């Protein structure tokens, strides 16, 4: 989050009762204990066999009714339009303009957390889906037939969303880090370009098809929504066992790449402010020595390290899959790779919370005070009388932030272990073999936990 100078830690941590690295050791011990507890007491699949409970028909009809859908869609379109307008017409100061905080903090960080609790809440508010559905409805009314679409290439799966996710974060943390920084009008133009691209793809392949596979934000927020309590099936709301819907998420090609991209981009953002600073400087100087311009060299360096993070996270996961393959009775490598990808979703969420918790708490104060009353940041409007509001940085101590970070990483990885263990029991009905296969996922989880805490400890100073 380079456009905001106070992205992560605001002050050096105070003295912790024990060194930061001991938290990594303690977290690893908790994970190992959780692993053995799962092996001892969880001997048949529970998430996979969970039966959701349908909510009342009247309540479902009300929540899923056309007027509510239209209202939610209009709210989404209005907020996106406001962000684009603020970006184009508002101040160039990133921290005073509604566009950046709304798009990159409120929506980008808020939807994953809310979705992980309630289910896919972005879907009804998705502005592109609302426009696409309205256009489809208008076409049907005028032409007297539903719009025809091309068949979506199955092999593409969610790869467009995975690549798009890398591109969004690249715009946010790489493009913005070089040169003059990420300016609101750049974000507004990028949003308009993305809107045109998305609507064109929806026209080609169908609204729901594209939202399920290629629309970056639908796929990304929907992924976290699979951890949540509520879903929709056959036009009815259902209440499901927490995390259970994640088991059916990674059925499309490229799903593993989406969740790996999520972990990798968050890791990169954290590491670029701490652990990677020295090696990035060395690579940057080397690229500049080759005769590349300063801004291009900076962006190229950042891009290389972001891709290296993606490769590193993918490699750790691939090692876990390769290890599981050695257990007798293992399914194919491809099946294992797709079959355990969903166990990384809570880790992606944990990384997100751990890295951006403080940013979110601080920037939401700005969002709901001066950015709400003066969205353009010009100092000429005060819609709700809160334009003079500010951010209270004393609301969180540096140590409180650290404990939230450790807690988020730990809980996320324990849930990841549970999901992986549950899936292993499907592939290896003999619980001893299932447990043996999960030694490897335990290693993956411990590696991600320690890596995450290392990044945070270095970034926090």
């Amino acid at each position, binding site marked *: 989050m380079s456009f905001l100078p106070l992205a992560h830690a605001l002050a050096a941590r105070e003295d912790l009762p024990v060194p930061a*690295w001991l938290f990594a050791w303690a977290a*690893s011990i908790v994970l190992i204990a959780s692993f053995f507890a799962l092996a001892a007491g969880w001997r048949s699949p529970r998430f996979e066999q969970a039966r959701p409970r349908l909510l009342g028909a009247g309540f479902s009809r009300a929540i899923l009714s056309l007027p509510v859908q239209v209202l939610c869609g209009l709210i989404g379109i209005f907020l996106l339009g406001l962000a684009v307008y603020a970006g184009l017409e508002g101040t160039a100061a990133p921290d005073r303009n509604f566009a950046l905080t709304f798009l990159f903090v409120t929506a980008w960080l808020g939807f994953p957390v809310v979705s992980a609790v309630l289910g896919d809440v972005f879907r009804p508010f998705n502005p592109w889906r609302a426009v696409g559905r309205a256009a489809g409805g208008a076409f049907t009314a005028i032409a007297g037939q539903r719009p025809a679409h091309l068949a979506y290439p199955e092999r593409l799966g969610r790869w467009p969303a995975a690549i798009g996710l890398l591109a969004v974060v690249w715009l946010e943390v790489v493009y913005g880090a070089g040169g003059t920084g990420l300016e609101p009008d750049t974000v507004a133009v990028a949003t308009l370009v993305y809107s045109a691209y998305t609507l064109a793809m929806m026209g080609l392949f169908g609204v729901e098809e594209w939202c399920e596979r290629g629309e970056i934000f639908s796929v990304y927020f929907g992924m976290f929504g699979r951890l949540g309590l509520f879903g929709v099936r056959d036009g009815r709301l259902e209440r499901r066992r927490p995390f259970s819907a994640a088991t059916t998420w990674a059925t499309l090609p490229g799903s593993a790449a989406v969740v790996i991209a999520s972990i990798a981009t968050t890791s990169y953002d954290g590491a670029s402010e701490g*652990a990677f600073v020295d090696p990035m400087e060395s690579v940057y100087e080397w690229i500049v020595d080759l005769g590349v311009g300063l801004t291009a060299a900076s962006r190229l360096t950042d891009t290389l390290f972001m891709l290296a993070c993606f490769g590193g996270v993918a490699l750790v996961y691939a090692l876990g899959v390769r*290890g599981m393959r050695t257990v007798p009775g293992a399914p194919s490598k491809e099946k294992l790779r797709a079959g355990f990808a969903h166990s990384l979703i809570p880790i992606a969420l944990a990384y997100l919370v751990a890295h951006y918790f403080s940013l979110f708490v601080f920037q939401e104060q700005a969002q709901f005070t001066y950015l709400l009353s003066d969205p353009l940041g010009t100092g000429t409007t005060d819609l709700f009388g809160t334009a003079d509001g500010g951010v209270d940085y004393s609301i969180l101590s540096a140590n409180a932030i650290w404990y939230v970070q450790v807690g988020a990483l730990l809980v996320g990885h324990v849930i990841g272990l549970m999901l992986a263990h549950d899936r292993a029991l499907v592939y290896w009905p003999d619980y001893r073999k299932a447990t043996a296969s999960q030694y490897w996922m*335990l*290693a993956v989880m411990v590696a991600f936990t320690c890596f995450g805490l290392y990044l945070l400890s*270095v970034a926090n100073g």
Partner: protein
Amino acid sequence: MLPLAHVGHYAIWVLYAVPVLIVAAAIVRSMIAQRRWEGDEESAPEEP
């Protein structure tokens, strides 16, 4: 830039890597034990 200038960073990294190394070592050890056990089973003479 002297490579030794960043030794401090690497030292801290090693402390964070210790749990991963322990788990990896435990996996390798259990794999070796499993293979040895399977080997013993195969070479054991069948009872009449």
